[in-house]
């Protein structure tokens, strides 16, 4: 059992478990799965600055902050305690393409160190991948009213067409970055 837990989990185990989070949150407290809202609550709690969109009773949404704190702990348990292979077994085509296109050579870790290590903040790559990337995630999810969890999983599970529009947007943006902007950047 422990050996199974230590290995990377296949999609047909992880996907259904992620899906079950939707009814679990509804059944324990009538909460809709959505993670990007936590970013808004943190802004409202720390730097509301008189902005109307950040002036609301975020205390009522505290459950969401407990949920994301749990995700941090889950990440620690999953990666540090249970342990994980140093190199993620991605497809050979992806390795080949990333070597050729982004000139990556180190394929260890959850993220490529050549792009995401803090030293990169001394050059343009760190600013594009860490700062601009993170900014677009925070800006875009709130503008769209949800992220992969709130729109793709929770929203589509509830057959909301709005969420379908959002998810098409997520993919269009991702494909544009990967296929058009990456080749221009490198």
């Amino acid at each position: 059992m422990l050996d199974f837990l230590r290995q990377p989990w296949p999609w047909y185990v992880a996907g259904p478990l992620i899906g079950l989070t939707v009814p679990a949150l509804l059944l324990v407290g009538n909460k809709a799965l959505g993670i990007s809202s936590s970013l808004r609550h943190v802004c409202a709690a720390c730097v509301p600055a008189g902005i109307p969109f950040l002036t609301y009773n975020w205390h009522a949404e505290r459950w969401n902050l407990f949920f994301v704190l749990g995700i941090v702990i889950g990440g620690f348990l999953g990666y540090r305690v249970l342990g994980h292979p140093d190199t993620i077994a991605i497809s050979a085509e992806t390795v080949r393409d990333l070597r050729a296109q982004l000139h990556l050579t180190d394929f260890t870790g959850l993220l490529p160190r050549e792009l995401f290590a803090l030293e990169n903040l001394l050059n343009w790559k760190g600013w594009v991948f860490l700062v601009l990337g993170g900014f677009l995630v925070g800006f875009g999810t709130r503008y769209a009213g949800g992220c992969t969890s709130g729109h793709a999983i929770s929203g589509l599970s509830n057959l909301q067409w709005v969420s379908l529009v959002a998810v098409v947007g997520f993919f269009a943006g991702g494909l544009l970055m990967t296929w058009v902007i990456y080749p221009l950047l490198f």
Partner: protein
Amino acid sequence: MKNLKYLVLGVLFGLILTKSEVVSWWRIQEMFRFQSFHMYGVIGSAILVGMVSIQLIKRNRLKTIHGEEISLTDKKYTHGTWIGGLIFGLGWALTGACPGPIFAQLGSGVAGAAVLLLAALAGTWTYSALRDKLPH
């Protein structure tokens, strides 16, 4: 403590995200390059199970463990749904992380995750400040 159950569900959620490697930049690149079924399998089966669960909850009019009504409010369409979606997609392919994975990466000890989180908070704050001036 009534929020403890959300903490526990969060721990499980973070564990699943990490062990299935969806918190990894490599897996997101593989997805956007159509070179593996892994991410599509995870997201697709999650939606399928979520959909069946919600149908069961609705048809059987299930209540929460505290006996409250379960109400699902639909999100409203604005032009922000697709404009914001597109902007998030650009960021998703750069960082390889949506908000959930950023929190899981933080726990896994990736130093860059702290910068990603601060940048994401700055993005959310900026959207909030500019909200009235943006098309919706």
